[in-house]
C-alpha cells in the first residue's frame, strides 16, 4: 500500500491488486460511507487508488485514520469466508432438513470440499 494523507482536503491510498482484492476495498468503503466520500479508481500500473474526500463530514478524519486497517481486516474476512463458505452452506442446508434434495445438496457440497 502506498498512502499520502497529509493536511490536504483529500487523502489518497494505493493498494497492490495482487495483495488486496477490490472486494475488500469496496467493503471498507461501504462501511465508512456514512462518514466520508470515496472515489475508487483502477490505475494503469495495476493498482487500486482510493481518494477520500475529507470535506464531507466531521467524521471524515477518523475515516481516513481507520481506512487502511479496515481494508486489511476486510481482506482477512474475505479469505476466512472463502475457507468456510461450503461449511456454512452445509450447516444451513442440514438445519432446515428435511427438504427436497437435501442429500444431493449436502453431497455436492462435501464433494467440493473433500476434507469434510
Amino acid at each position, binding site marked *: 500500500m502506498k498512502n499520502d494523507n497529509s493536511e490536504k482536503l483529500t487523502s489518497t491510498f494505493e493498494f497492490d491488486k495482487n495483495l488486496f482484492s477490490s472486494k475488500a476495498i469496496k*467493503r471498507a468503503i*461501504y*462501511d*465508512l*460511507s*456514512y462518514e466520508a466520500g470515496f472515489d475508487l479508481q483502477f490505475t494503469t500500473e495495476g493498482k487500486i487508488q482510493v481518494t477520500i474526500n475529507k470535506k464531507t463530514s466531521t467524521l471524515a478524519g477518523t475515516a481516513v485514520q481507520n481506512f487502511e*486497517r479496515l481494508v486489511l*481486516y*476486510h481482506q*482477512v*474476512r474475505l*479469505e*476466512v*469466508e472463502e*475457507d*468456510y463458505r461450503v*461449511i*456454512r452452506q*452445509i*450447516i*444451513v442446508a*442440514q*438445519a*432446515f*432438513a428435511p427438504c427436497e434434495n437435501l442429500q444431493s445438496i449436502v453431497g455436492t457440497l462435501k464433494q467440493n470440499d473433500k*476434507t*469434510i
Partner: protein
Amino acid sequence: MTKPYRFLPFRFERKDNKVLLVNDVGDYCFLDKDQFHKFIKMDEEFVRQSEDFINLQSKFMLSSDCLSQTLDLLSTRYRTKKQFLYDFTSLHMFVVTQRCNLKCAYCHASSVDEACGKDYDMSVHTAHKCVNLALSSPSKHIKIEFQGGEPLLNFDTVKEIVEYAKEANKIRNKHLEFVICTNLTIIDEHQIDYLKQNNICVSTSLDGPLDIHDKCRRTRVGSGTYSTIKEKLSCVMEIMGHDKVSSLVTVTSFSVDRLREVVDEYIQLGLSSIFLRAINPYGRASKYWKNLGYTIEEFVVNYKLVLDYIIHLNLSGIYFTEEFATLLLTRILTPFPTGFVDLQSPTGAGIGGVIYETNGDVYIADEARMLSKMNGNKIFCLGNVHSHSWEAIFCCDKLKGIIEESCIEATPGCAWCVYQTYCGSDPVRNYIQFGNISGHGMRSDFCRKHRSIFNILFGYLQQNNDNIEDVFWSWISSRRLSEISI
C-alpha cells in the same frame, strides 16, 4: 499441505487491543489481537501451545477433527436459533378501532377523534374473519394483541374477539394469549374485571414523571393524562396483579437525558420492567421531529447511563429489568431463539406477526399500515380477510420477496457485521427511509442504534464482572438476584 484446522463460520471486529469473534450460532469470544493473527495464519506454535486454540475449539470457531459431526451439532443449534421460522405467524394485532381519546405528539397510529363514527371501528363480521385467519396459522401459540386507536373505545368488539377465538380454538387447541395495548385513561372496573377473568395482559405507555409524560401524551383538548393514568394503573395492578401489566416508554427529547427519573417513576409505581423505545420518525413524530427528536448518539449515551443505573439498582436488591437489553442478552448468552418480530433475520414482519386494519386489510407490520394511511401506499398490504384466503395472504410472492430481501446474511454491511447473529432487519423502515427493503446498512439510524447497543452490552460482558453477569442472568431467567448469586 493439510491445514491444522478449519475455520467454522464466524465474524469478527477489532475492539481496541482485542478482537471480538461471533459465530453463526451466537457463541462469542474475545481474543488478544496477536493471538487473533496467529489464529488466522494457522500458526503452528498457536496450535501446539496455546490455550486459546483449545478455547476457540470449545466455542466453535474452529474445528480440528470430526468436522462432519461438528457440522451436525451446529446445524441443530442453528435450527434452534431460527425456530421462530417454524412457528410462523404467532402474533396477530387487531386494530379494533382507529378512534382514540388522546392525541399524543408522536403518534404514528394515525388515530382519529373518538367522536367519529363506526366506520372507524372493526365490525364483528371482520373480526370473525380475522380470528379465523389468525387461527389458521401453523403456530401452536397464538397471541392476539388489541391495538388502535384506543381499543377500549370498541370494547364490545374486543370481547367478541375473545369469545369467538376461544370458541373457534376448541377444535384447534392452540395456546391462546391475549394482550391489550391501551392508554388506560378511560378504563372502568367492568373492563378491568373482564380483562382479569379472561387473562388478558395489559400493555400501556408511561413516558415518565408528570412533567415528562404530559409533554406528549395529551387528550385531544390538550390536557395531560399523567394523574389519570397513575390512578388507573394502580387500580389495574391491584386487581389484576403486577405481573399482568407492563409499560413502555417512548423516549423523546424531553426524556432522553432524564431516563433515570423515568426509571425511578416506574419503580415508585410498582412496575418491575421497562421497555425504552426510541422515538420513530413516523406519522406525527416526523412532523414534530425538531421538537421531539434527538440523534442516535444522544440516545445511546443516555441508554448506557440508565443501564448502569438499573444494574446498580438490581445489585442493591431491587429487581428491575430493561426489556430490550434482556432480549438482546438472551440472544447473546443463550442458545435459544427470541420472538421479537422487529429485529429478526429474515424479518419477522409478516411471518412472525401481522396486523389487521379495521376494514380487514392485512399488513406485515404496524408501520406498514401507517404508511398506507400516510400516502395510500399499500405496498406492504398482503390482502384483505374478506377477499383473500390464508394461502393467498401468507404464501404470496410479495411476502416471499420481502422475506428474501430482508435476510441480513446477504445484505451488504450486515453480511460481515460481527453482530449479525444477534440482529435483524426492518424492511418497512428501510423502505420508508431509503426507498428499498434492504436499506443502507451502516448509514441507517437503525443500524447505528443497534450496533451501539451491542457495543454497550459487549462492553459489560468483556469486563467478566460476576455481579453484572448475575444481574443479566436474573433478567434472562426471570429470577431474583438472591437465587442466582453464589
